[in-house]
């Protein structure tokens, strides 16, 4: 029933905000005094509350980066946990200002759903996890014919799964849940043989299971899952702010600007660093966006650069220990590439 209600509320707000929304998201956010950011209901490494109730993770830190760019203070964020099914309605209806919730960028979402994806904060792909103790001898996804597969509804995962099994002429039995916790519980209880979602998610979920060492992630990656933040269409100013907040994280890493050295770097002689950090004379690097010229400084002070965010949440500084791989900067053979800030 909750969904019907939220759907109706969504529809109603769509009708109501007709005049209010034209003020612009940036002005609305500034007037409110905080950024309302949509995150997952709890996915380790991306957005999950820690034991003190603070949201941690790559996606949560991206929210903080945007808040820092707008307010100069990364703590001015309120998080809205959303299920896969609720996320788009929440953004469309104006309930949240920014959706940063391990969401795959697709053409349908970018057009017919009225969203604008700002970039790819994490390049992912869909994988499979099985309980190796219960299923010895299975070491490839192609051996999964006849299996019961746990999957979360309303995701691209659900569609890729159907495509993959159809393309390989295999049978399967989908066990579909609405919330991530429900999928985890069902898989842990043995309701299904296979868990499928984005591979980064599988590593995170594995840690939350009863006995993580029993479970293995199969080598196959069956899809491209570029995960990124999204905003509503029709507000270019806000879209640019969020997009360049992401590029600022990448640029800071490229230039070696870190959370620790950002104050010293302000005095740097390197003209590129000076330009990015807004210390050039008569700079308009931030005002053109509608922000202060020190917006990049604020972002880096709040969360660090992209590399720091990555390592802290999903990389070597986290229990997930995911390698940078294709998420490394382009200079290091990865896919993360930012247009110049000038």
């Amino acid at each position: 029933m909750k969904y019907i209600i939220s759907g109706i509320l969504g529809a109603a707000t769509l009708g109501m905000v007709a005049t209010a929304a034209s003020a612009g998201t940036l002005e609305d956010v500034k007037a409110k005094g905080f950024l309302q950011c949509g995150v997952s209901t709890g996915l380790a490494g991306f957005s999950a509350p820690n034991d003190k109730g603070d949201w941690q993770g790559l996606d949560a830190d991206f929210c903080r980066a945007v808040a820092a760019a707008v307010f100069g203070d990364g703590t001015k964020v309120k998080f809205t946990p959303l299920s896969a099914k609720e996320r788009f309605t929440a953004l469309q209806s104006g309930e949240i200002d920014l959706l940063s919730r391990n969401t795959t960028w697709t053409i349908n979402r970018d057009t017919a759903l009225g969203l604008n994806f700002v970039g790819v904060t994490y390049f992912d792909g869909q994988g499979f996890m099985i309980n190796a103790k219960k299923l010895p001898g299975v070491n490839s996804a192609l051996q999964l014919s006849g299996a019961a597969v746990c999957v979360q509804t309303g995701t691209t995962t659900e569609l890729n799964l159907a495509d993959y099994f159809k393309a390989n002429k295999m049978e399967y039995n989908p066990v579909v849940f609405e919330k991530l916790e429900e999928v985890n519980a069902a898989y842990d209880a043995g309701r299904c043989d296979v868990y499928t979602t984005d591979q980064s998610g599988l590593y995170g979920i594995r840690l939350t299971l009863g006995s993580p060492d029993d479970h293995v992630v199969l080598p196959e990656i069956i899809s491209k899952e570029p995960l990124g933040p999204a905003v509503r269409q029709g507000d270019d100013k806000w879209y640019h702010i969020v997009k360049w907040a992401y590029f600022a994280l990448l640029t800071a890493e490229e230039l070696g600007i870190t959370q620790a050295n950002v104050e010293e770097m302000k005095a740097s002689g390197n003209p590129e660093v000076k330009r990015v950090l807004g210390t050039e004379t008569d700079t308009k690097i931030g005002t053109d966006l509608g922000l202060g010229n020190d917006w990049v400084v604020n972002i880096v002070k709040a969360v660090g650069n992209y590399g720091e965010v990555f390592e802290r949440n999903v990389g070597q500084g986290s229990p997930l220990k995911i390698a940078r791989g294709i998420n490394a900067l382009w200079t290091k053979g990865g896919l993360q590439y930012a247009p110049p800030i000038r």
Partner: protein
Amino acid sequence: MATQDIPHDVGGGRASLLYDPKVRGIFFQILVVVALTAFVYWIIGNTVENLKRANIASGFAFLNGRAGFDVSDTLIAFDSDSTYKRALLVGLINTVVVAAAGIITASILGFLIGIGRLSNNWLIRKICTVYVELFRNIPPLLVIFFWYFGVLSVLPLPKESIELPFGSFLNSRGFYFPKLIWGEGSMLVPVALLLGIAMSWFVARQARQRQMATGATFPVFWTSLALIVGLPVLALVATGFPLSFNFPQKSTFNLTGGLQIKPEFLSLYLALSFYTAAFIAEIVRAGIRGVNKGQTEASSALGLRSGQALRLVVVPQAMRIVIPPLTSQFLNLTKNSSLAIAIGYPDLVAVGGTVLNQTGQAIEIVVIWMVVYLGLSLITSGFMNWFNAKMALVER
């Protein structure tokens, strides 16, 4: 609206029209209708305008698109190449199936427990009271979780399935039982079954007429049972047992072959039945209590045994009290079936939610949901009103 005739003031002209309550009544009715229409029109127009401004596609054309996802429980053919429309139909059928099965079970269980609460046996009475108080006071969602996580998910994995008689298995993936395969000439069996039912109906009618005319009774129940069970068995013997079974077999992951009832369906069905049965039991108890004690005493004075008195005198009168609140319980059960989403049973809300998310057509899906549940409820209450009217004829 007040429509009594007031003598018109003949000389008043326009003034009299203004003060005529009839004219004024019509005027205000028209005003309300116009205002309501304008409001609805404004809401729709505003929504369409804003959807357009937010670049969100709208309309029902998306229903013909390829679904691309699979659904676990399908009674009609469905795969990822089917349309969204068909996916919603699958969900609707699942909702109707679980609601219908739940209504039947809840009614039977509820009647038994309701009568049990009035039993003279202390133990039966107390057990029924505990049942009602327990299930009536727990939210239905928790009852569903109890069956799903508490009972069905602690069953063993497929490899260690519990073996039941007749080649059936029970494990955490559900209940597996042999599938009947109809061989050549087996069509005679359902024909014999239908014949048996028709003949039983005829016998019952004859017996009633004879009892009316002569007062002599006839063992209708046992005759009907013999006809309904005996004729198909006879047909089986005559055709030389053309039936065979497809037994569930263990394979790498699951059991294959046979028929499977999934734990999602089982837990939803059991939870809804057990939960609603508690309410129905109370309604039935109230209905029976509502029949004057003198009726029971009069029937025993006529020489009816207590079972006969209950069946022939008390229950028919109790039904008139029971049916209207029973309708509400049936509607509640149907609507509670939307809790299926919590355990992943693909009912209309769950499948609709998936379609909503894959297409982003929130408003359209919500409209479909509302129309379908409204339709189901109206059909149910229409049927129950008909049933109520039929039972009311018994009134003397």
